[in-house]
């Protein structure tokens, strides 16, 4: 019974996520790519889907949106005891923007970003 409820929630969240992503991409493509953390290719594919296809795509037992931060980043953000909530937001942005570069293998061994 519990699992069935959970799965319903997952499907609902998937659909909500897909619809929101499409709306954001239609409104301002570049900004939406940044906010969603999607690749250009995936975003274009998502934009081309009809509502019926979105429902089909979301109808799975897997959650389609994932946590963007890695373990070290979560730790750094939680460890930031700056009294200003806003600076923590800045820190999160800085950490997340550094992450995609690591993904693209731009940082070298001694921590230098070329």
């Amino acid at each position, binding site marked *: 019974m519990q699992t069935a409820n959970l799965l319903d929630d997952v499907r609902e969240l998937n659909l909500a996520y897909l619809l929101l992503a499409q709306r954001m991409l239609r409104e*301002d*493509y*570049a*900004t939406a*790519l*940044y906010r969603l*953390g999607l*690749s*250009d290719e995936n975003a274009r594919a998502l934009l081309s889907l009809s509502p019926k296809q979105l429902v089909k795509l979301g109808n799975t037992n897997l959650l389609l949106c994932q946590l963007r931060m890695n373990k*070290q*980043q979560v730790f*750094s953000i939680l*460890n*930031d005891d*700056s*009294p*200003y*909530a*806003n*600076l923590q*937001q*800045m*820190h999160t*942005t*800085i*950490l*997340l*923007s*550094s992450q*995609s*570069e690591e993904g*693209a293998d731009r*940082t070298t061994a*001694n*921590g*230098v*970003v070329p």
Partner: protein
Amino acid sequence: MSDTSPPPKTIPRTKSVRREASEIVLAASMIELGSRLQVLQIETSLSRDRLVRLYREIKEVSPPKGLLPFSVDWYMTWLPNIHSSAFHGIHRNIVEQTPSRGAQALVDSYRLYRELAKDSSGDNGEPVLSFTRAWMLLRYFDSDMVQLSSCTQCGGTFVTHVHSLRHDYVCGLCRPPPRAGKTLARSLRKKGY
């Protein structure tokens, strides 16, 4: 601005009306974000006359005269460094992950930065990093006057002086200077936070 030579214009001068229209739209959004006239002159191919008129129409005042702020050191002070690093991170992401380029990328990333900086603005209600300063920062990167360093504690990427030591760099958020944030706290208190 005397110390850096202007880069080649990204948009060639042309008589195309469509191009001019899109440049006016771009210039208008730059003016709304607080751009100085000098920035508009470099980033668009519109004439100075038209830019001044556009500026007056949008801001309802004449564009301010005088030199642009030109201190590289400003970006290294505590709070500006955090804001500049956040802005530059957004801009890197925008350029790497989206089709947005040049002045449009600057406008997109500055809008995202402003969203983030909305409630930490100083006394005058303006974000710490102004649009013109954000543009200058990108120019300093282009002319290799600043570089990026990774914080050895949090792993974030921050703006630092070129040639500064990078192997043991710790950012201003992981190791704030003793009086960091005192001015900010005072101005926030005044605003009732």
